[in-house]
């Protein structure tokens, strides 16, 4: 059991599925499922304007929420610069997305079991010198095409939008983009700039996840352990 709960990325949907926060992730899952009528959303990218807004936490929890809905889920750590998924799930990062894209490993070698039923993880792999080029490569498109056949849902964790261009590239290859906004941390024009970056590559914006919202004392009791 972790002694530093504040720093540790909580997979709360797994460890405490009855909590209101887990409920919020399930609501997010539902909202995504119903946000597109014609086209099925299979590849979702999660990003944010700046660092440390909770992209990886949201991605991991959303992936777990999908896995709990009996979908075959793959979480890809697309942050080739500051990867975190292997830490969240306590996995090895010796081989991952970068090894796959640089043809040093096969798909089967880089997909790891997360320990959560139905949820597989592809860690980032060794940090490459040219992440943006790797993301933009034809190999990447081919890999995604292959993954579409194997998984119901593919979630992409990415670097921040305004820091590097990686997320823009991945956005153009995804079916939907979720932007995480940390409550009270992101200035309006910064967020607008990040959104403009996504619009420029024709990303399909699913919406915003407002993260780290301060809980008001009066709120949250409606479904707080409802039916417990």
């Amino acid at each position, binding site marked *: *059991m972790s002694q530093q709960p504040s720093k540790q990325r909580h997979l709360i949907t797994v460890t405490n599925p*009855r909590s209101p926060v887990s409920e919020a992730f399930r609501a997010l899952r539902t909202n995504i499922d119903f946000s597109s009528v014609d086209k099925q959303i299979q590849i979702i990218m999660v990003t944010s304007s700046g660092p440390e807004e909770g992209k990886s936490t949201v991605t991991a929890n959303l992936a777990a929420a999908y896995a709990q809905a009996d979908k075959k889920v793959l979480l890809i750590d697309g942050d080739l610069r500051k990867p975190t998924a292997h830490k969240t799930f306590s996995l090895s990062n010796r081989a991952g997305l970068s090894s796959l894209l640089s043809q040093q490993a096969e798909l089967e070698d880089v997909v790891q079991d997360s320990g959560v039923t139905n949820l597989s993880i592809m860690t980032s792999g060794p940090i490459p010198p040219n992440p943006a080029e790797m993301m933009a490569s034809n190999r990447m498109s081919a890999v995604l095409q292959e993954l579409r056949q194997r998984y119901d849902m593919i979630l992409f964790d990415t670097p921040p939008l305004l820091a590097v261009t990686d997320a823009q590239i991945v956005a153009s290859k995804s079916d939907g983009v979720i932007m995480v906004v940390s409550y009270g941390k992101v200035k309006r024009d910064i967020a607008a700039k990040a959104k403009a970056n996504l619009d420029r590559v024709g990303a399909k914006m699913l919406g915003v996840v407002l993260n780290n919202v301060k809980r008001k004392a009066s709120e*949250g009791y409606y479904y707080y352990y409802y039916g417990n």
Partner: protein
Amino acid sequence: MSAQELDLRDYFQIVRKRLWMIVSIVVVVCILAGVYSLYIKNPVYEASTKIIVNQTPTQSTVAQLDLNQINTNIQLINTYKEIIKTPAILDVVAKNYPQFNITAEDLLKKVNVSSVNNTQVMTLVVRDNSYQKAAEIVNAISLVFKQEIPSLFNVQNVSILNEAKVDPPVAPGPVEPNVVMNLAIAFIVSLMIGLGIAFLLEYLDDTLKTEEDIEKYLGLPTIAMITRLGQEETKSTELQAQKLTRKAGELEHVTAAK
């Protein structure tokens, strides 16, 4: 847009959010004001005499109260009030009482003359850091005034009703600083400053906080609100983890299993 208009609850919210800042500003300012009032500012004492302006019967042809005479005296008081504050009196006080070691200009700052409307009584008040000195000065001024008036007006119509007691049986308290008043002012002013800063900070804060903000500035829907993982969640997480050892165990031992 509704986001622009703050309703009353929003104001409470803003105040509650920065309550600690406001409280600390108020506390610090009040402590400073209290320390200043009690320890730094010298206390000021007040002593007063009353002077009555009336014609002595020897000068009056008729030995009875004459309304005209009284009115004249009342009018005279206004003149006397000014005369007391001129060098004609204060210079003499400064010269005749060298033990005060005080100039006429300083005396002018200490002395205050007032009269109640339509009475023949005027009050002389002197403030000083020592009560005894204040009493001595006010007595001296009254005396000099009484002595000097005949040479200025050629009338003998001023008498001293009561002198200030130099050694009163009960030591009088200082009139200044008024600790309670200073604290009250400090409290109100600092509270207003604190609230002002809180609202200013809120106004200057242009970060995204609500679904309305996101809709307005990004044109995107908010599809989820994830609250901060609070203490309770972490606690219940651990409780839950203890109960559901299978799940927690799987998570913990993934590396070992691999």
